Each structure stands twice: as structure tokens, then as C-alpha cells.
């Protein structure tokens, strides 16, 4: 058990360092992303209400897209990303509480948020099911889960390689976020397939 945990933690540390290195250049992809996904970020963030947790807040690209009155807490594994998110929050004139933490062990009590947002990040978390369980735990009953992610690994031909790739990395194979959400107890309200089905946008709710 201890052995498994430390292997996982090495992996987490690698992910953390990688995103620290990528923090400076991350926003260069914004133009392309917008052409592919339109304002998917805005559409999802516009549904957030009350106390909102954004998991993998990154450089803070979503922070100016939340409605007024939403209190945002941003979590990320990478301090390099969080430093940028702090600047984005200041630029957007928003007070955002930033936390360095792991999506698989959220540093919040049960039922503490009205909405949880995670955009283009679930695919990077080494264990989707654990991460989604944690999202469920910190959402109040009736609270909204708002997800956007790319899912090429769940489609042919990459699906053929995902199992092997996951085994090599010592993690479970990735599945479509919508499937994981349903399996972990969420009620899906809306599911859109975007960009020829390579991206999923999901609005789900923790049952009241």
C-alpha cells in the first residue's frame, strides 16, 4: 500500500513539474482553442453559482467568465500556474482564493461548494474516478458539476492504445468524463459532443 502511494506521488510530482514548466507558454494556445471550442468555457462558467471550486484553475483563463457574485476558489497542483492565475484574477478585478492541492485529495470539507468546474484537465489527472468522487464529496447535494475535456483516448484508433499506455503509467485507462460522472453517482443534465466528438462538455448534478 505504502509502495503504491509513493509511486503515485512520484507521478504527481512529475505532472506538477511539467505544468510548472508549461505555465509560461500555456496561453499561447488560446486562439486555436477558441476556434475549436468557441466559448465553451464561458458557457460552462456562466452556469456556476454561489461558492464555486475550479479544479486545475491553471493560468486562470476562466476567471473573467464567472457571473458576478460567484465566489471562486481555484485549485491547482502547480505553483507556476497559480502565480499566473493570481495575475489573471487581479486583471479581471476578482477576488479568487487560490490553493495548491491535488484533485484526488481535495483540501475541503464535504458539501462545501455549490458548483465545481474543471476544464481541459480531467484527462491529466492520473485517476479520473478518484477525482470525480472528490468532486462529488465537496459538492452540496443538488450542486452542479461543469466539465469540459478532450476525449480522443476514448475513441478509435487511440482507444486501442489507451489500456497499454495507462498500464505503463500505472494508472487506470481513461474514459469519457460523462461515463465516469454517471458511474460515480452524478445525474447528467446535458452532454454535448464538440469538435467531431473529440471534446465533451458535461453539465451534471449531485442528486439532492
Amino acid at each position: 500500500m505504502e509502495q503504491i502511494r509513493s509511486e503515485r506521488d512520484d507521478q504527481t510530482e512529475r505532472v506538477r513539474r511539467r505544468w510548472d514548466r508549461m505555465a509560461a507558454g500555456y496561453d499561447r494556445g488560446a486562439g486555436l482553442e477558441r476556434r475549436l471550442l468557441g466559448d465553451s468555457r464561458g458557457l460552462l462558467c456562466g452556469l456556476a453559482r454561489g461558492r464555486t471550486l475550479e479544479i486545475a484553475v491553471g493560468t486562470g483563463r476562466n476567471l473573467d467568465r464567472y457571473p458576478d457574485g460567484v465566489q471562486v476558489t481555484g485549485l491547482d497542483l502547480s505553483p507556476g500556474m497559480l502565480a499566473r492565475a493570481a495575475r489573471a484574477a487581479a486583471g479581471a478585478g476578482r477576488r479568487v482564493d487560490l490553493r495548491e492541492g491535488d484533485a484526488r485529495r481535495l483540501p475541503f470539507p464535504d458539501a462545501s461548494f455549490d458548483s465545481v468546474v474543471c476544464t481541459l484537465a480531467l484527462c491529466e489527472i492520473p485517476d479520473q474516478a478518484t477525482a470525480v468522487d472528490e468532486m462529488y464529496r465537496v459538492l452540496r447535494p443538488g450542486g452542479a458539476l461543469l466539465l469540459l475535456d478532450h476525449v480522443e483516448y476514448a475513441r478509435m484508433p487511440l482507444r486501442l492504445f489507451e489500456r497499454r499506455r495507462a498500464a505503463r503509467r500505472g494508472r487506470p485507462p481513461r474514459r469519457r468524463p460523462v461515463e465516469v460522472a454517471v458511474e460515480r453517482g452524478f445525474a447528467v443534465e446535458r452532454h454535448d459532443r464538440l469538435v467531431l466528438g473529440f471534446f465533451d462538455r458535461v453539465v451534471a448534478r449531485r442528486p439532492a
Partner: protein
Amino acid sequence: MTAKIDDWLLEILACPESKAPLRLDEEAGELVCDESGLAYPIRDGIPVLLVDEARRIG
């Protein structure tokens, strides 16, 4: 370094290991979980709530 954190923030912070509430040790600039015996640092004003980065106390 003195850490400044609103009460509101502490209210929705929990230890990632025990999920118990955290208490601010202003002098040390750390967030302490008495249940798991871990003290989490605050770096550049951002609480670092990773078990691997925490200091084991007592």
C-alpha cells in the same frame, strides 16, 4: 513571516488527509491539522495543501 487569512477561508479549508478543519499558526505561517499532525506551508500567500509538502508535527 505572518500569514493573513480570512476566517471565511479557514471555514472552507480542510486537511487533504483527514478532512478535519485547519487552524492557522500565524507565527509559523502554517496551517495546522491537529488530527493528522500535519502542518501545511503558505507560499506567496497561497496555502500548499499537499500531504507531500506538509511538515509532520508532534
